[in-house]
């Protein structure tokens, strides 16, 4: 409803300037259309370009490199090395972090390790998804479990090769998980144990 129900001249006789909403009724819609289009393009094109600019070059995609002693992966587009976590090799993209734990002899069987990961999600006030199997392109089998937290989503991949077990953790903001997950999964599936690469 109009908050300016009368556009008649004021009592003093001076014309009252109509509001923008009133003026729009008789004016062209072109400037408004340009405004809406330009702002949308800023978000569709400008934001990703600026993000690419501040993000730096990142790891070259499609090149294999070592992420932990005995474990190599092929980076996907747009991931960058993050040295802030110290202990583990970490890549970041769009606010998400993927962290690699070096292969070691397993502390517990694969299924138990997945259960521990699932319990960890519950303990952290998250909602765990169903544990699912996967196989890397090198043929190593494993399990992964996702977790939903208040403002973020996680995924944990645990996989084995010849008596060694490796783990990869992903944590991503809620509204970019969909885009990040596929890319992170591609990296995980490219994993190769050093023993497999040597053989």
């Amino acid at each position, binding site marked *: *409803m*109009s*908050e*300016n*129900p*009368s*556009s008649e001249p004021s009592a003093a006789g001076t014309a*009252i*300037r*109509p*509001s*923008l*909403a*009133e003026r729009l*009724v*008789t004016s062209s*819609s*072109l400037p*408004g*259309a340009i*405004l*809406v*289009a330009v*702002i*949308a393009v800023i*978000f*569709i094109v400008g*934001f*990703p370009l*600026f*993000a690419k600019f*501040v*993000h730096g070059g990142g790891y070259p995609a499609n090149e294999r490199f070592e992420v932990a002693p005995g474990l190599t992966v092929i980076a996907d587009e747009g991931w*960058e090395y*993050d040295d*802030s976590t110290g202990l583990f090799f970490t890549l*970041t*993209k*769009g*606010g998400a*972090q993927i962290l690699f734990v070096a292969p070691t002899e397993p502390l517990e069987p694969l299924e138990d390790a997945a259960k521990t990961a699932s319990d960890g999600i519950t303990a*952290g*006030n998250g909602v*765990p*998804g*169903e544990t*699912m199997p996967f196989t890397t392109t090198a043929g190593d089998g494993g399990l992964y*479990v*996702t977790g*939903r937290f*208040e*403002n973020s*989503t996680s995924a944990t991949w645990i996989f084995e090769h010849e008596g060694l077990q490796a783990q990869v953790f992903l944590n991503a*903001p*809620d*509204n*970019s*998980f*969909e885009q*990040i997950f596929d890319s992170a999964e591609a990296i995980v599936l490219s994993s190769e144990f050093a023993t497999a690469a040597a053989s």
Partner: protein
Amino acid sequence: MTAPRTSSAFDTRSLVFWVSAALLVYGLIEFSPIVLRSFTGAFGPALIAATLWTIYTVALLVIISRLAAYEKRSPLSILFAFLWGAIVVSGIAVVAAPAGHTIAAWILGGDSDWVAAIGAPLVEEPLKMLGVVALALIPGARVRSVADGLFYGVIVGLGFEVFESFLYSTQWGTSGTEFGAILAIFIMRGVIGGLWSHPTYTAVTGAGVGYFFSSRSGALKRWAVMIASLIGAMILHGFFDSPLLEGEGSNPAIATVVKGLPILVLGLVVWRVARRRSRVALSAAARDIVPDEYVSPEDFAALATRRSRRQQLKAMRKAHGRRAARALSRVQRAQLDALVNASDDGIDSVRAIKSLEELAESRAALAEVSS
């Protein structure tokens, strides 16, 4: 006063409408594969999630419409606002949200717990606000007051919240989402967090947009209010997404309520301000525009609050029965419509004349049943 050429935001002669339609198509192109994957990954759980969130949407739309009692807004304009939030914002966010997080991570450092709290509002709040701006730029949508902007802001926010939550419920489709997990997300995002989430943030920006387009104040003041409303909504969103009160041993439900209450209170304050401005405007319309034989200032005083309208209906039911109360309810609606349409389009407009005719008819019907 010149009336807009359409009765809703669906104005095919407006270029803003066509730009919005193009953005809707873009959103569908970006967004459909994700929704499709949810259904193909785990059809049953996705269907359950879709059903839950549809019921949630309908229930909230009914509540929101009841709270906006002065004005019956066009269902097509409401659909426009909902689709903007659900499809346009979600679709653009597919490319812009990761960029927003990258920029936030660049500013704060990649390991900062605040990346999500800064990255999400940076993208989502301006995009949702743009939906209310697009509506306001189409005269047929009649965004003519703070209350109009607030109302459409709530609908844009609701559209975004529902689609975002649906995706969160099903994005584990490939990992076999269970019903328990879907229900947990629904309770967490819809029931516990729903009152102070996207609809509340966009209510604040929508009110700012409504002020910008309806106020006769100077440009500087109008810009200041609109920009302040955007910054305010971004701060509210960031505060809600912040890692404050989170961590080991914390209870997420309690943390959500503690963080959400100030947001809800602020949203209610903005709503009350918007309502008061509308009441003043309708009171002026009753005094200056609509002849007293239809709606006098005294009539409006009795219509001004939900409570006073209910009291009238109750008294009528007691005196003359349910039929008479229903007829009075129709008169009340017609009086409000007459005030709103006369103040929007002018007393000589088609909409105002129709309202006055409906008012005359409903009064005759009331006289018949209450005599």
